[in-house]
């Protein structure tokens, strides 16, 4: 097992040329033989990450405009270009609030605060390599989509005492959950918990219970995981989901509300919170959630026109018509690529017309024009019927209702 730095392929991501040069030189003096590749922005980094595999990625958290380091890591992990064998180290400013525990979300292998000393960089790299390098064969078969063989490899490693036991068991449970092998999830997690009750194992057990439809057992387990490790955020998300499945939306909302106080940076959590608070008519909460969704999603270009529409609705419910109109304008500029843009924009305009009657006729004309060219997509169909009803347009609403596919 090669846990020396010599032949490793390294990528350095930093928006400052000086910093890139300093890190590159430091790595050279630590024995890295191949000159590291460098990227000055998240976009450049993604291009490189997609084009080849790196053993080590050193990434500055603050990359100027666009994505920050954690968003880049999330995306790269999702795409598989940072895998279970890749060492990812996040470099942060000295007094930064970004250094969150690895357990908090799917974090990097280590955080390094500037100014970085060679000794510390070396120690952190070697420690991470010792965990990651033994996973290389597993990463390789996972790249080919062969989960079965990955599970076999993990078992061989366990039997031979190779690699970090805790990491192997965790990956095993993850893969088993993915493939729906619930008995295996249970077997692995229960064995881990017998040694030590750790949050991820309790949470995975909960997920298995949820998949089996044992909702109250799942709830108990997620709550247990939160007691063990309050900042294990996945447990909060699953707890909210299981409460929703039990029809307890109010409780689910409370769980998510507390979860975003602990960690506000998850796009999917904020979206979920936005939906739940609209359902519960908690407009202030909804407004802040949709604002967060837009802010978090912007650099990753994952904001949808619908998110803006929801913000418009929350603002209107709070009586902030001027702000709602502004949000609608922003929708048109910010999510031009969304194929449903014109429909969500139309819906927003109609909602605004409920208060601002002057625009009602013009808005309805625009709607008729739109409907001449296309049938409203499923996502907006019901919402259109609803808003027409609220505008007193009974005939138009009825016509649309008849067009509704079963």
């Amino acid at each position, binding site marked *: 097992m090669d846990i020396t730095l010599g032949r490793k392929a390294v990528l350095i991501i930093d928006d400052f040329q000086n910093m890139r040069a300093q890190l590159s030189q430091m790595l050279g003096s630590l024995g890295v033989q191949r000159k590291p590749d460098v990227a000055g922005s998240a976009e450049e980094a993604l291009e490189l990450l997609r084009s080849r595999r790196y053993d080590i990625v050193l990434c500055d958290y603050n990359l100027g405009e666009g994505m920050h380091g954690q968003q880049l890591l999330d995306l790269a992990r999702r795409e598989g270009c940072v895998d279970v064998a890749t060492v990812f180290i996040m470099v942060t400013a*000295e*007094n930064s*609030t970004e*250094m*969150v*525990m690895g*357990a*908090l979300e799917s974090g990097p292998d*280590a955080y390094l*605060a500037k*100014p970085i*000393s060679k*000794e*510390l960089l070396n*120690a952190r790299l070697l420690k991470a390599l010792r965990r990651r390098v033994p996973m290389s064969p597993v990463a390789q078969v996972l790249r080919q989509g062969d989960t079965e063989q990955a599970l076999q490899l993990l078992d061989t490693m366990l039997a031979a005492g190779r690699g970090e036991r805790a990491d192997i068991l965790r990956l095993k449970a993850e893969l088993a959950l993915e493939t729906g092998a619930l008995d295996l999830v249970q077997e692995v997690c229960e064995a881990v918990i017998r040694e030590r009750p750790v949050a991820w194992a309790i949470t995975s057990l909960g997920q298995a219970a949820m998949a089996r439809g044992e909702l109250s057992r799942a709830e108990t387990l997620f709550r247990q995981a939160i007691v063990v490790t*309050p*900042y294990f955020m996945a447990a909060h998300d699953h707890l909210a989901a299981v409460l929703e499945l039990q029809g307890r939306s109010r409780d689910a909302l409370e769980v998510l509300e507390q979860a975003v*106080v*602990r960690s506000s940076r998850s796009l999917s959590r904020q979206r979920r919170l936005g939906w739940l608070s609209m359902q519960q008519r908690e407009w202030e909460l909804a407004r802040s959630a949709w604002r967060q969704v837009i802010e978090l999603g912007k650099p990753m270009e994952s904001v949808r026109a619908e998110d803006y529409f929801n913000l418009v609705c929350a603002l209107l419910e709070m009586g902030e018509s001027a702000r709602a109109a502004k949000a609608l304008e922003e929708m048109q500029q910010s999510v031009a690529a969304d194929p449903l843009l014109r429909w969500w924009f139309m819906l927003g305009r109609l909602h605004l017309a409920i208060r601002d009657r002057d625009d009602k006729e013009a808005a309805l004309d625009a709607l008729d024009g739109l409907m001449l060219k296309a049938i409203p997509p499923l996502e907006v169909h019901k919402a259109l019927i609803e808003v027409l009803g609220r505008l007193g347009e009974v005939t138009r609403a009825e016509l649309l209702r008849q067009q509704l596919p079963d």
Partner: protein
Amino acid sequence: MSKLDFNTVLAISIHDMKNSLNLLLGSLDDLLQREEQRPSMDSDRLALLRYEARRVNDTLIQLLALYRSVKGLYHPYFTPVSIHDLLEEYWLNNKILMDHRNVECHLTCDEDLVWVLDRYLVNSLLENVVNNTVRYTRSRIHMSARSDGDWLLVQVADDGPGFPRSMLGRQAIREGVQLDPQRGRTGLGLYFCALVADMHGGNGDRGFVELSNGCELGGGCFTLHLPKLPLN
């Protein structure tokens, strides 16, 4: 000049001075390492320079933190932190100086130990304590941490001459510890440490520091006590 926000002025100036100092410290580390390979008289002077630069750095951090805390401008940011990594980070960032002084440092801490604290404040405290310890110890330093019920104990022990008797005991802001101008910089450092500890507390317990002599290594021993905090 119209209304000047001195907090901002201080923050900007200190940030800038710290940047320069970091560069200075980095260059000194480089020089020191090169000198180690071909020993000459100058390495001692380099080490002294480095020590002094470090002190200026620490004093600046203290100055800013104290000023902000007195003005009510510092809002601690509490997050779960791996204590092992925190101590190791501090040790490895100062290894060159320790090596030069032939000081051996050991670290004892469970790798899984996680505690909720303000990383920046505790880091500043460590810089203060360890830099001082490197100066006074003879040959060894032992950094350790463990949890004891609802408390975290972080200890820095050495085999030096120990603390003067007048400084021994528990130093807690809530128990009336005040800045003693007679003690000069040492007093300021100690007050700073007590303040950092005190900022870690909610409605109930608050942190404090304790100085003692004759611990495991026979010299001085600094202990930071931090209570368990709810995450938010």
